[in-house]
């Protein structure tokens, strides 16, 4: 299960993997000897029940809504909201944010390590 979940997080999974994951979880729950085995798949099963859409997004669109899955996360600056203050640029640990002073900033996806520092530093919630 862990390996399939990792595949999903890395954007390497297909829709069939979700099917495999669910089948595995259901059957481990039913066929296990001990209570640990019977309950281990519960987190997978409940997230599948309530957040199936997100699983699908990961598999099909290779997208992570919350940007928690670093491999497929994409952090962007909303040009509408950006006030060109430059705070994000100053705080970025890998100098992935480009743009001159008083200009709206853009994230260089090649350099970005998806650490989220910029998101936290933006006073206008323009990054996500």
């Amino acid at each position, binding site marked *: 299960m862990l*390996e399939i979940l990792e595949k999903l997080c890395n954007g390497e999974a297909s829709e069939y993997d979700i099917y*495999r994951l669910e*089948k*595995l979880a259901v*059957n*481990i*729950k*039913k*066929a*296990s*000897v001990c209570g640990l085995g*019977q309950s281990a798949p519960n987190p997978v099963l409940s997230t599948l029940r309530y957040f199936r859409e997100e699983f699908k997004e990961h598999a099909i669109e290779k997208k992570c809504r919350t940007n928690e899955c670093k491999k497929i996360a994409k952090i962007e600056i909303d040009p509408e909201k950006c006030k060109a203050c430059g705070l994000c640029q100053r705080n970025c640990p890998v100098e992935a944010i480009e743009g001159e002073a008083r200009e709206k900033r853009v994230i260089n996806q090649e350099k970005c390590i998806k650490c989220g520092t910029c998101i936290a530093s933006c006073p206008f919630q323009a990054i996500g």
Partner: protein
Amino acid sequence: MEEEFVTLTIDGIEVKTKKGNTILQAAQKVGIDIPTLCFLKEINEVGDCRMCIVEVEGRKGFATSCIQKAEEGMVVHTHTPEVLEARHIVLDLILSNHKIECLTCTRSGNCELQKLAEKFNVQKIEYPGEMVKHEIDDKSPSIVRDFNKCILCRRCIATCKNVQEIGAIDCIERGFESCISTTYDNSLNDVDCTFCGQCIESCPTGALHEKESINDVWVRLKDPETYVVVQTAPAVRVALGEEFGMPIGTNVKGKMVTALKRMGFNKVFDTNTGADLTIMEEANEFIERIQNGGVLPMITSCSPGWVRFAEKNYGELLSHLSSCKSPHQMFGALIKSYFAEKYGIDKNKICIVSVMPCIAKKYECSREEMEVDGVRDVDYVLTTRELARMIKQANLDFTELEDSDFDEPMGEASGAGAIFGTTGGVMEAAIRTAIDTLEGKNVEQFEYKEVRGEKGIKETTLQIAGIDVKIAVVSGLANARRIMEQIKAGNSPYHFVEIMACPGGCVMGGGQPIKSSKVRATVDVRKLRADALYSIDEKSVIRKSHENPVMKQLYEEFLEKQGSHVAHKYLHTEYGAKEKYEIT
């Protein structure tokens, strides 16, 4: 007390079964097949592998039918789509951590995992992923362990711990890292393993197998300089046919000899003759011990697994063991001396191959003591399974082969030699000769039924020449331990004890064709094979070792007399206590 019964419904069929029986047993009674993997009747009933799960109405989750007792009014479904899917997943998960190399695996064709994969129509590995990697342990002369093929069913552990009471292996590590191994992951060679090979017999996959000598033997066969002599143990002929689809207990002696001759062995001899020789020496040793107040009880020493067990655990009691070598070692020594001289063959160019139902014999033939004047008694030991593989390699259509006889001059054997292959046989054979010698006349009794059968410890008292001789026949190391503890405590009532390491004797040895758990649960393999040996004995004209003309000739021409100096040089050996594995 009247037996209680319960009635339950399995797949719509009403089944009445004894109270205490499992669902699996009840289902088998009405011909419903439930797949199993870790289940080994009366040895490993733990419900570990989850292959036999079934649905029981009103119960949360599935029940494991191999351990779940049948209850009154139970409604069981064994083949619902849910059950089938769950079993399939269980199998998928087992396969996801199994080194799949069926094409080159020794168990291909006789693998319970492979059979299940075929049954479930597995066409790809559904859950590939990280696999546990283990080094292959092939340090011992007998057993190879490849844990990359292990499925953690624990049948070997149960056999080693509960049947043989050795406990050389157990589960180590936790979770994903779990594996079956020895203390501190040592090689089997370095712990208290006796090389009985019962673990191999119980393994459903190719994780445990014998250390093969097939290629070495082929090399020697191809070498025109080498004079290759093969000898076959009594228990091999009644089991070899099974590897070619013949019924259990078919005597294929004739076909086996033909096959060996076609494969290019220069001479094909019968270890039964060696067994006769062992009886000549062993019975003589026993008589001497009785008459001269030697160490009693005397214990047989034909089973190398047992000898290793004794050396490891009862070093101080080794004087009880007969000094006789095992039949094939005796025979090997004779071929390289008497036979070589008589026929003018250079003994250094003779290669002796023994086909044995045993893997401890591989260890035995590599023991330092097993040589005379620097010449090894036996060069290679092949198991019954290896011989079958070689016959297949040689492209021989085994079932269609004509019969032929063992080669002269050492091909004739008595019925007493034949029954060596089953528990109680050595004792019976020895008694036939000892009685005649002690009474000084020909006693017309051949069969001693008290020492036959499957019981682990059989005992009886015989009146021989006015002495009450108490004898015991023991098979399985757990029972051997009991007898040894008695001797250690100084209250053993016996004069003569036969001990075989494998439960049931050589017919159930660690080198015999492997039977699936299903066959073992439904057929008494031991009895079928043993009966075949007893019927060889019954049909024999000569049924006592000392009446075998080959023996007479051997003693006249070479060995002088029983227990002589020459006999001791070639046919006897000594033992030494071996260090037990201690945690330091």
